[in-house]
């Protein structure tokens, strides 16, 4: 399996659930709950960014 795709899988599952949550909040007009999706999205991006950077550095070396 492609290494980048494999790295993304544990982040992708949260993205899948986040999509479900955001769509559901928009459908139910629960705009007050939308903020709850932001912290995990940011933390996931930070962690994924670090991994991708490390992979890039390993490739350069």
């Amino acid at each position, binding site marked *: 399996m492609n290494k980048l795709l494999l790295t993304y899988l544990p982040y992708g*599952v949260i993205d899948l*659930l*986040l999509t*479900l949550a955001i769509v*559901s909040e928009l459908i139910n007009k*629960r705009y007050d*709950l939308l903020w709850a999706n932001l912290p995990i999205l940011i*933390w996931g991006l930070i*962690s994924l960014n670090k991994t991708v950077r490390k992979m890039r550095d390993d490739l350069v070396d």
Partner: protein
Amino acid sequence: MIWLIEISLLLVTGILIVHASNVYNSSFVKVFWISGIILGFFREYALGEVMNLYTYGDFHITFFGLPIMYTVFWTNIAYIGLVWSNNFLEREYLKAKPFDYHLPLIFLTMVLIAFFFEALISQYQLSVWNPDSNSTLWGNTPLLAPFAYGWTAVLFIKSLKLLSKESQQNWQILVLKLSLAQAPVVLILAGLLLLSNLAIILVFS
């Protein structure tokens, strides 16, 4: 939408198992998910049925009254927390020194997952909380909910690390040891939740 949530969580389990079997090995997958499912059953029985901390909504896929998605949910998010913290710290928790930054990061990940997931399921009243404290995040979701997520994953991962220290043990033995350990893990979890609830009551009263 409830169907979609349940099926998505089963799909997530499949995806994470594929990931774990590629990154670790098939023995790790068996150890992690078999003992995790046992944790799920014990946890839901203890917190839902015995402590009556919450009651379930209209889940479609259930087993003896317990929603099937909760039997794998805790294992799944514990695995996500483990991988994200490993990636962030650029080292493997199961091989790291005893006092490391992994556990606080796993706890943080669980708290953040609790925010969005509780927001999602609260829209359909899939879990109705009945805690003693009145402090809530929104609607019926109490301040205790993120702690319930955090302690569950941290205790499960810690028990895995403690019991997998010994090298040269086959996976069947480890599954057995870890599965048996889940009963005390849930007892410790219940104790920590009572303390967390007490702290919340004291701070916000």
